[in-house]
């Protein structure tokens, strides 16, 4: 007997179900196929190549009229089913037609999710789901502007497709990196770079606030930081929701999707469902591979055969020309999981395998995906990889590998990469000199001047020697930054500048880091280098800082903290002292100590009390003394000429001015200053990082002193006549130190390496350079001279509290 099958939705899933069914039999079923779209089944996945102009709609039709005719399918395209009546086993079409069914198959797919921002219903705000959306995007002309909300698979394919047509596209993504569901940060970084190269503007961590319109038509997207992005079309590609409305009204069991069992049968035995509209075992679906598996089960179930749908691992590829990207399985860190990471900066390749119990459970590849199906096979089959673990990452064709080359990162640099910043010497010049016979550092210095000035690029020049000469070069080796990289601190610093690396991900990738996100040794250093070189572009990462700098207080051996408010130039007032005393009482501070830096230390404050005690001190006008920071600590002064019979200049005033200019700046190590009013030197200025001794004729500026583990007198940088000159020179010195020193080198160590003469050239002799240094310092201060105490009280006081207190709950 011929049975009546009604199918709702002519999508990719139901289409495959019909195909499979007809392979077995066309005779048993009388099929009626409804579709809301005015066409039959086409390859929705290939809309992106259509958008990019690589294919036409005709190329992507899966079932044409002839196919439907051949299998006797009654097509009702452009018609929606309006209602399902389970009791009478009938469906009603939009136009009121009522049809009987023996079996009903729901394949309604999903609806694009539209964020309900103000203005989301304006003309010109579209999703990316069907041919109509695609055609709308194809109508954009070169030079027109489009904003795409969503940096996932769909959003990026939409963006790349339109960019290929010369449209100016901006992608706005709420998360920190692109395609965060499929990619880890490193691959997200590479992808972003490739898209930016295609002329697409990519904004991550960007929150949309409102869609602005004019005469009912979209005009711009407003972000919550106030940025306005003008646009002629706005495409929202932020996710999909299973299309369950019809099933829900019919009273079928529905969660996120329509509930189905392993046979793809819904809570009604005569109704099956398939595709993105279903929920199976708590899971909903957004890629075709599992839908096609479901479709086969649907056909079997309809034929009364035994079959069960099993969920499998999924893999994703992005269909954007030039972005080879693959991700599969589960690649999050997890208990007992280990990573194997491979990076080849020269080719822009990144590969990461996640291993658990000798099996590959996840993989992310960027740049070279040629072996991805082999790896995907390992994941799906759960192959034991213990035997091939060491060479696994090199893929199936691996034949006895070579050890990783420590000069790889330098070898990967482009010929025009600047190696020596002082003398503007690039890689190719140095390599040419070496090839022409300059066989050691001295010879390279003599012929190219590279590393002949401040010397911080010495490591890079040596690596170039090693890589150009091979075994013939025997260089002295400075230690690598840590186990995560073979490069030295100074190599990393140089390359961050010359390669314009502006994010941690850029450093990990371009410099071939061996770990995923560094370690406690390299991350604080890299974070510092990035913020010092790119104060505007790079954002400081507190999670890459030692706890003292993350919590802006000094951790004690018992886990409490010390709090030291600033006392400008060591001056205080009765009001400040009262506020400190009150705070000490209020928070039961066990120890109050007068420090060696002319201020007062409150020791033993509980971590939870920090925001509150800061707020109290802030109220009395005091800010953080940064007594915990690799930054400016104190400026000690003596009472100077206002009071002292020997005083020559206003040492207190100059000290306060200096502290007010320099506070809040992050430096490679802590920096301490002092200003004494005469050569008796009561403020101990001659053993500071920077010390000023006032004399009748002006100011003697000394630098590079020490009085900690080493004791060393300052060296004279210059004698100047005015306060202004002293201020300027000291800021220039600070900035030169900030830009060039190795992390955790105090100024005296750094000056010993680069030589005082070179420092003098920059900050004393060359007025242009001095001015530029002062300007760069001011720029950095415009970002970083903020009281972190006030900021944390306002923005993250909550994070100082326990996430939960179960002792209270137990008592309740």
């Amino acid at each position: 007997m011929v049975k009546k099958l009604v199918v709702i939705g002519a999508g990719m899933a139901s289409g495959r179900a019909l195909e499979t069914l007809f392979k077995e039999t066309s005779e048993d079923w009388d099929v009626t196929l409804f579709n809301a779209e005015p066409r039959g089944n086409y390859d929705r996945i290939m809309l992106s190549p259509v958008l990019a102009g690589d294919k036409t709609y005709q190329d992507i039709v899966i079932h044409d009229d002839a196919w439907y005719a051949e299998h006797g399918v009654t097509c009702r395209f452009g018609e929606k089913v309006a209602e399902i009546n389970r009791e009478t086993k009938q469906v009603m079409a939009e136009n009121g037609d009522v049809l009987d069914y023996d079996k009903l198959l729901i394949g309604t797919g999903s609806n694009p999710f539209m964020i309900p921002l103000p203005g989301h219903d304006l003309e010109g705000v579209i999703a990316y789901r069907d041919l109509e959306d695609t055609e709308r995007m194809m109508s954009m002309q070169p030079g027109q502007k489009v904003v795409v909300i969503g940096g996932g698979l769909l959003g990026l394919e939409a963006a790349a497709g339109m960019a290929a047509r010369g449209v100016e596209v901006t992608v706005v993504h709420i998360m920190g990196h692109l395609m965060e569901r499929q990619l880890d940060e490193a691959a997200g970084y590479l992808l972003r770079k490739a898209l930016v190269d295609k002329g697409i503007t990519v904004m991550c961590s960007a929150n949309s606030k409102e869609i602005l319109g004019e005469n009912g038509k979209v005009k711009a997207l407003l972000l919550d930081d106030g940025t306005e992005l003008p646009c002629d079309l706005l495409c929202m590609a932020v996710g999909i929701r299973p299309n369950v409305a019809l099933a829900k009204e019919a009273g079928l069991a529905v969660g996120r999707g329509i509930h189905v069992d392993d046979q793809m049968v819904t809570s009604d035995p005569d109704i099956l469902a398939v595709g993105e509209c279903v929920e199976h075992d708590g899971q909903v679906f957004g890629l075709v591979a599992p839908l096609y598996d479901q479709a086969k089960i649907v056909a079997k179930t309809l034929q009364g055969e035994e079959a069960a749908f099993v969920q499998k691992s999924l893999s994703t590829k992005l269909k954007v020309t030039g972005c080879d990207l693959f991700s599969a399985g589960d690649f999050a860190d997890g208990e007992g999981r280990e990573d194997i990471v491979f990076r080849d900066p020269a080719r822009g390749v990144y590969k990461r395998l996640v291993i658990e119990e000798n099996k590959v459970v996840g993989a992310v590849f960027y740049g070279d995906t040629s072996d991805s199906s082999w790896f995907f096979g390992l994941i799906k089959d759960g192959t034991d990889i213990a035997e091939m673990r060491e060479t696994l990452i090199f893929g199936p064709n691996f034949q006895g590998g070579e050890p990783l080359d420590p000069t790889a990162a330098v070898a990967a640099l482009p010929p025009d990469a600047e190696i020596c910043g002082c003398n503007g010497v690039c890689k190719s010049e140095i390599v040419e000199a070496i090839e022409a016979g300059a066989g050691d550092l001295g010879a390279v210095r003599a012929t190219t001047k590279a590393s002949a000035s401040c010397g911080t690029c010495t490591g890079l020049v040596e690596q170039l020697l090693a890589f150009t000469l091979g075994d013939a070069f025997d260089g002295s080796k400075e230690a690598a930054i840590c186990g995560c990289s073979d490069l030295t601190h100074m190599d990393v610093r140089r390359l961050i500048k010359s390669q314009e690396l502006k994010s941690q991900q850029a450093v990990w990738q371009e410099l071939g880091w061996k770990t995923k996100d560094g370690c406690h040794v390299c991350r604080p250093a890299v974070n510092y280098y990035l913020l010092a070189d790119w104060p505007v572009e790079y954002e400081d990462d507190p999670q890459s800082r030692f706890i003292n700098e993350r919590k802006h207080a000094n951790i004690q051996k018992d886990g409490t903290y010390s709090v030291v408010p600033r006392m400008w130039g060591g001056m205080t007032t009765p009001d400040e002292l009262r506020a400190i005393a009150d705070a000490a009482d209020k928070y039961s501070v066990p120890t109050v100590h007068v420090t060696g830096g002319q201020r007062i230390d409150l020791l033993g404050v509980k971590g939870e009390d920090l925001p509150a005690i800061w707020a109290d001190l802030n109220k009395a006008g005091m800010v953080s003394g940064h007594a915990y920071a690799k930054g400016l600590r104190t400026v000690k002064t003596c009472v100077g000429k206002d009071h002292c019979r020997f005083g020559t200049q206003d040492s207190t005033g100059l000290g306060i001015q200096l502290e007010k200019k320099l506070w809040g700046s992050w430096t490679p190590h802590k920096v301490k200053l002092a200003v004494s009013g005469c050569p008796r030197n009561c403020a101990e200025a001659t053993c500071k990082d920077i010390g000023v001794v006032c004399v009748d004729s002006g100011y003697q500026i000394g630098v590079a002193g020490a009085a900690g583990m080493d004791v060393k007198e300052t060296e004279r940088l210059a004698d100047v006549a005015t306060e202004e000159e002293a201020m300027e020179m000291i800021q220039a010195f600070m900035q030169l130190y900030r830009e060039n020193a190795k992390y955790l080198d105090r100024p005296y160590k750094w000056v010993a390496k680069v030589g005082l003469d070179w420092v003098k050239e920059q900050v004393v002799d060359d007025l242009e350079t001095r001015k530029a240094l002062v300007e760069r310092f001011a720029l950095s201060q415009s970002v970083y001279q903020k009281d972190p105490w006030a900021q944390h009280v306002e923005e993250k006081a909550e994070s100082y509290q326990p996430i939960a207190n179960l002792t209270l709950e137990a008592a309740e």
Partner: protein
Amino acid sequence: MSSWIDVGALDAIQPRGARVLKTAFGCVAVFRTGEDEVYALENSCPHKGGPLSEGIVHGSKVTCPLHNWVFDMATGQAQGADDGRVATYPVRVEAGRILMDAAFLQNRSAA
């Protein structure tokens, strides 16, 4: 039998960060890695009691803030030359919430 209790939102912890959870038997450090995995460890370092929740998180490891011992958060084992182990507790994330096994937390003192 395990009974999972909700101790807070995943977003309440910075990626590569931690918060402490106070229990009747002392503090537990709840970590979130750069890739949104969570781990729960005894907060006190076996070396000299440093608060691990204040350490730098890298990969699935954490470095104690007091003297830089490094622990694998999955096993609680000290890495490299240092010898020691901190207790780990079952924890998972569901729908953006962090869940911990109450039974385990209560058994802490016995463990």
